[in-house]
């Protein structure tokens, strides 16, 4: 099974990255960073978005070639020209985005990942070998199922199994639990931890969840803006100390206190039903009421119909049945209705769902009001000056980092795209706010700002429906929590009384 010329070191081995510097043009992504992963340890790599974590591991895996610095594998210096070299040395990576092919079965995915796929695959023989391999593994997966039909948790297990099937001894995991329920995350990480303890594996895990670092990692390395900011044995650190090292001296927006009581029902859903792109029912007769001055959080693992529900509310998808009322009036996601009821939307993937990438920041900020005074005269003659003045004001107020208001919005970073959408959606009066994963992939400063804005909107009397895959975010912000599973609402509780283990169980469908 050994591929390439350099055999992998036998047993577990460590990886050291010494004095790594990586330049992309003028931008210094890594500045003299040092990482030491001891053999047979569970090492966490912490840092904010853009801190250089991915760049560092991509240098180790051979996707990038570091401008300066060396990689030692098992104490020996190795030149890793491409991912194939890294694989041959026994290094494997589990990516944040799945690399399994959804339309193929798990067995096909596993066999295909091998370097020595036979020209004609003898399926009966391969299946027997795969079953024998699975019997030795801590997780079980249905080999003949299509990847598109299994849950996100099972997919993540398959990604890890694939690396073990390929006999990789050093695993790099890139935010492996971002799509899992807390219970699933604990199960997967616990099993990996056991393999590390048994001396079968070494793990380097990129994460931003302190809970997982504290529970599973032996050591941690913390990066900040491309520099080594700190690290050490996890047993000697606290989450607060790690957070301070990660963020540095940056000022975070202070979230206003929760104030005021919930008022009248503002957004009412009655037996709303919607299909997904494949034509199967994704949203199954959902009934839900959100009152003024209340944040209702919808928890759930991604792919349980949340996206389709938000698309119906946003007007991107037609409902198959049911009724939606806003402030008592029937609602069909028309522009006029949204304007009348002062509805705001923060959809997930804002660049795709809420912006036109090629248009300027100023134009994108003006979308809601572009054809009314003062932006337009008579409903058709656009006043470019008003666009620019309004955008300039909002860019300052919402701290959007853009070169000019005329810069295409696709040139902005994720956090700044979301800030621009925030400026458009929340600058005026808001009576109903629908937000879906508003902080996905953003750094602390942006997250704090968005959370503060959502809470402020609630305190001003807006009815907020917050759909999120991040339970911590929901527990922090929402007044009421519901869990969505297979398109149905399966659990509801006041957030102050919600039990995390019960919520997690419902997210997993038990």
């Amino acid at each position, binding site marked *: 099974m050994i591929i390439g010329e350099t055999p992998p070191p036998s047993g577990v081995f460590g990886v050291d990255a010494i004095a790594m510097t990586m330049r992309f043009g003028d931008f210094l992504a890594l500045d003299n960073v040092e990482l030491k992963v001891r053999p047979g340890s569970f090492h966490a790599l912490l840092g904010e978005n853009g801190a250089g974590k991915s760049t560092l591991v991509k240098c180790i895996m051979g996707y990038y070639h570091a401008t300066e610095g060396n990689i030692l594998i098992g104490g020996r210096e190795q030149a890793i020209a491409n*991912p194939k070299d890294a694989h041959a040395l026994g290094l494997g990576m589990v990516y944040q985005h799945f690399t399994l092919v959804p339309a*193929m079965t798990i067995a*096909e995915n596993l066999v*295909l990942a091998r370097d020595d*796929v036979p020209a*004609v*695959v003898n399926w009966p023989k391969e299946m027997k070998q795969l079953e024998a391999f699975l019997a030795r593994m801590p997780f079980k997966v249905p080999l003949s199922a299509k990847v598109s039909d299994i849950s996100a948790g099972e997919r993540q297990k398959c990604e890890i199994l694939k690396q073990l099937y390929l006999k990789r001894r050093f695993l790099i995991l890139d935010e492996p639990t971002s799509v899992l329920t807390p219970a699933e995350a604990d199960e997967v990480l616990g099993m990996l931890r056991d393999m590390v303890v048994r001396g079968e594996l070494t793990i380097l895990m990129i994460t931003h969840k302190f809970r997982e670092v504290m529970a599973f990692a032996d050591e941690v390395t913390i990066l900040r803006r491309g520099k080594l900011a700190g690290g050490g044995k996890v047993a000697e650190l606290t989450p607060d100390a790690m957070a301070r090292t990660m963020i540095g001296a940056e000022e975070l927006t202070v979230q206003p206190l929760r104030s005021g009581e919930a008022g009248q029902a503002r957004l009412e859903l009655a037996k709303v039903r919607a299909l997904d*792109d494949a*034509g199967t029912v994704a949203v199954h007769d959902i009934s839900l009421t959100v009152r003024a001055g209340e944040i209702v959080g919808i928890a759930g693992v991604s792919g349980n119909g949340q996206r389709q529900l938000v698309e119906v509310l946003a007007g991107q998808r*037609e409902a198959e049945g049911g009724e939606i009322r806003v402030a008592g009036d029937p609602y069909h996601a028309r522009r006029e209705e949204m304007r009348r009821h002062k509805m705001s939307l923060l959809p997930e993937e804002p660049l795709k769902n809420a912006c036109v990438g090629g248009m300027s920041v100023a134009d994108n900020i003006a979308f809601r009001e572009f054809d009314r005074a003062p932006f337009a005269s008579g409903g058709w003659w656009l006043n470019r000056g008003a666009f620019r003045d309004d955008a300039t004001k909002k860019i300052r107020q919402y701290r959007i980092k853009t070169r000019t208001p005329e810069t295409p919005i696709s040139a902005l970073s994720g956090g700044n795209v979301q800030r621009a959408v925030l400026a458009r959606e929340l600058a005026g009066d808001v009576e109903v706010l629908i937000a879906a994963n508003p902080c996905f992939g953003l750094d602390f400063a942006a997250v704090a700002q968005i959370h503060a804005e959502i809470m402020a909107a609630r305190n001003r009397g807006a009815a907020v429906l917050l759909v999120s895959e991040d339970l911590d975010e929901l527990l922090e912000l929402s007044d009421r929590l519901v869990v969505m599973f297979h398109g149905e609402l399966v659990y509801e509780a006041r957030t102050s009384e919600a039990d995390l283990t019960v919520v997690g169980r419902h997210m997993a469908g038990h």
Partner: protein
Amino acid sequence: MADGSIGLWTVPLAVLGGAIRVSTPFLFVSLGECITERSGRINLGLEGTLVMGAMSAYGSSYLTGSPWLGVLAAGITGALLGALHAGICSLPRVNDVAVGIALMLFGTGLAFYLGKPLIEPTAARLPAIDFGWWSDIPQVRAALRVNVLFLIGVALAPILYWAFRTTRWGLLIRTAGESSDATRAMGHSVLLIRLRATMVGGFLAGIGGSFLSLFYPGSWNEGLSSGQGITAVALVIFARWDPLLCLWASLAFGGAAALGPALQSVGVTSGYHLFNAAPYILTLAIMIMTCSPKRTLTGAPAELSITR
């Protein structure tokens, strides 16, 4: 029933014969396109490839006297046109649909230009196997005169179906069509896989063209293909990218195309041109029945530019 007259039975017989005869180019082009599209690329240029294949097959057969060398020449011409399509599409920010349309016009134009001297001469034609020897009825014999290329195409469909599941190449083509990220993560070159898949697709489409000029209708002229190439591309979509369904769909289209002439032969002359439009009406009908604005097509390769 005397003197070989079989009355209205002529119609289903002619449709059956037509299904076999007319379907062959549909079959080859759709199987070729099936391979190309499963790799994540759409090649609309196959209409041009078909006509170029017909011209080069006719020319080669005329010059060498061997129709089989003509078939080979058509395949090679098709593979080269496929390589041209894949090569242009490998460049950054190139749209495969636009390139396909350009190559469709290029292929037909080039074939007409190079094929001018071939309109007059007669080339050696492909042989047929007589499966109707047991019958005295001329219509039955005519319907069952089956070309070898048709049989090859019929065999190819299950072979492709099997190959997509059980061979390394089949699995790699599907992976490239479903997720280019996954393909790259495995260390394979997506562009190389698509280049090869497009070349094989072009090869088969070229052979489909050779059938037109060397068997049915069996001569070279500029009106040889009436959009079979482009219809076959659409056919892959109805067939849900499944080679076996491509076979049935090709037969259905062949049968529909034979409806007009068959009805004319029994004296139904009113609406002749309307019946000739049957394949196109069938195209529209299937489109309307199977497509929905609310749904994506099941089975569509995820990397295809029309479904992404």
